């Protein structure tokens, strides 16, 4: 059994399937155990930090990250280098926050890094802190990951004892420390300004933007908020230097994690370059469960993909899959309306209530889909649904409102026949009207 988890009093965390065809982010994370600092250092860990602090200036690192085309892995896909460049215009003190509030339906990639290879994240944070001129970092981890919280606290202590965190790291004049803060169950706190509000000890309501966090963030200071996977890429970029640009397709270099769940043979976390297509990814996970026919993929709560989209690449191009890489696979026995209802229920529950179009719109959405499910929907309801789906994003200030009707909009476009069939009182998969 795992020594570290035993010491922390954590029960055996359930086994899940983890596979990689490039062995970068998941290099040490394939087995179900936590990698301690000795093993991490022995397998080349913290050498990127040494290289960064002793042989590179912050500007060198920033240029390298810009050239690496690294994009935010939390879903928005914003170029990381550009975000960092933005904060350098603003005065110190600056802060770094790691967004570990992974609450998107079907997403469980960050927890693998946190629970199995926490030092990769910590090393990435220290290098990022050095680059953007921050001396204090926070990790905001969601409340539903109690094990991850304990493991991070433990790993940070280890790093401190070994002189990788604290004052004058590795004998340089750079100092940096990390604090972990637990959320308490709110999807909205994954939105960066809501996360900052929550971290300041308030209700997690998003702020009006601009000003963006690199201008006005934590305690009103310039702040960078990056996802766990984004920050874990940093040590890899430093280690590989310009060779990083040999990994994956042009413009979308580097590894990406794909959490796959639903009706596949081996649900789990898969690592690949971004030139893989959706079809290949599903095959990597063993194909559709029980040899059934493919129906659709839900990318978390953010999009729906049908049979025609199976050959899109999993990158951040306008036609690509993008987002968090979350893949929830539906087969022919699952109903689109039924699944949309689950997503609509989720958004209704998680809307923070600050913007009325989102608070009321998500409720209306839910009610109409309920009508579709129990067979009382009319053509008028369908029109109203389209109307609401158009207007929620216009009237909301944050990403939750922007994406709340996205799955419905996609489904209306790609599966209009499902809606029509339900209007006629038929459910193609035989799930509804019970």
């Amino acid at each position, binding site marked *: 059994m795992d020594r570290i988890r035993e010491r922390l009093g954590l029960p055996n965390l359930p086994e899940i399937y983890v596979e990689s065809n490039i062995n970068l982010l998941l290099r040490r994370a394939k087995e179900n155990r936590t990698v301690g600092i000795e093993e991490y250092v022995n397998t080349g860990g913290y050498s990127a930090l040494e290289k960064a602090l002793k042989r590179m200036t912050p500007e060198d690192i920033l240029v390298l990250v810009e050239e690496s085309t690294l994009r935010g892995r939390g879903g928005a896909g914003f170029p990381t280098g550009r975000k960092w460049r933005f904060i350098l215009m603003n005065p110190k003190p600056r802060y770094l926050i790691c967004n570990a509030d992974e609450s998107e339906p079907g997403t469980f990639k960050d927890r693998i890094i946190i629970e199995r290879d926490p030092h990769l994240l910590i090393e990435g944070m220290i290098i990022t802190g050095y680059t953007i001129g921050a001396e204090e970092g926070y990790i905001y981890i969601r409340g*539903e990951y109690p094990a991850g919280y304990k493991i991070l606290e433990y790993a940070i202590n280890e790093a401190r004892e070994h002189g990788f965190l604290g004052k004058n790291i590795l004998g340089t004049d750079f100092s940096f420390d990390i604090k972990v803060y637990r959320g308490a169950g709110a999807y909205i706190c994954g939105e960066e300004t809501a996360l900052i509000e929550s971290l300041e*000890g308030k*209700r997690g309501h998003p702020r009006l933007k601009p000003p963006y966090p690199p201008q006005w963030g934590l305690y009103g200071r310039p702040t960078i908020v990056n996802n766990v996977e984004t920050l874990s890429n940093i040590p890899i970029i430093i280690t590989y230097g310009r060779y990083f640009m040999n990994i994956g397709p042009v413009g979308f270099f580097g590894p990406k994690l794909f959490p796959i769940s639903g009706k596949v043979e081996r649900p789990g976390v898969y690592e690949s370059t971004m030139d893989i297509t959706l079809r290949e990814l599903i095959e990597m996970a063993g194909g559709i469960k029980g040899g059934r026919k493919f129906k659709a993929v839900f990318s978390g709560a953010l999009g729906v993909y049908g049979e025609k989209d199976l050959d899109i690449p999993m990158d951040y191009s306008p036609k690509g899959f993008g987002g968090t890489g979350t893949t929830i696979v539906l087969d022919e026995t699952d109903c689109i309306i039924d699944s949309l209802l689950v997503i609509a229920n989720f958004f209704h529950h998680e809307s923070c209530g600050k913007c009325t179009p989102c608070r009321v719109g998500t409720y209306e959405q839910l009610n109409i889909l309920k009508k579709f499910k129990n067979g009382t929907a009319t053509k008028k309801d369908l029109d109203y649904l389209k109307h609401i789906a158009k207007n929620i994003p216009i009237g909301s200030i944050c990403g939750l409102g922007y994406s709340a009707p996205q799955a419905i909009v996609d489904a209306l476009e790609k599966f209009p026949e499902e809606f029509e069939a339900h209007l006629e009182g038929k459910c193609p998969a035989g799930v509804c009207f019970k």
Partner: protein
Amino acid sequence: MAYKYLTEDIIKKIDEYRNKFPYKEQAIIPSLHEILEKYRDIPEKSLEELAEYLKVPLSHIEGIVSFYDMFRFKKNARHHIRICRNLPCHLANYQSLLEKIKKLTNADVGKSSADGRWYIELVECIGSCAIAPAFLIDNDLYDGSNLTDEELKKILEKYK
């Protein structure tokens, strides 16, 4: 003032959080986690004590408790079962798991069992979609796929 709910070890933890973060408001959520850990739910009186101890308005703390899903008022159950109802667990038929658990515990969603042992709640994604339908008992995560009735019984027996 003598505190009923803020015991010595909780106060020690609260002081730790106050020293860890620059603002006293930042100690509220971690302190509520400590209270939750100890009492399994948030006793209403404990909020008044926390407000008194941290010198923040009670309304601010109540606002936080009502906003975050994990904080609940006293429901008088010793163990808390959280079953995920989001899409991957929905596709894996969490409903049948819920029915089994209901039968074994005599509790219902949002209602505790008569003996005060169980409380069941349906929650949004808990980030364990590869082992759907996933569920948490207190702080422990369980794999609900391919779970036989016998295994489920054994898991539940661990929580007295």
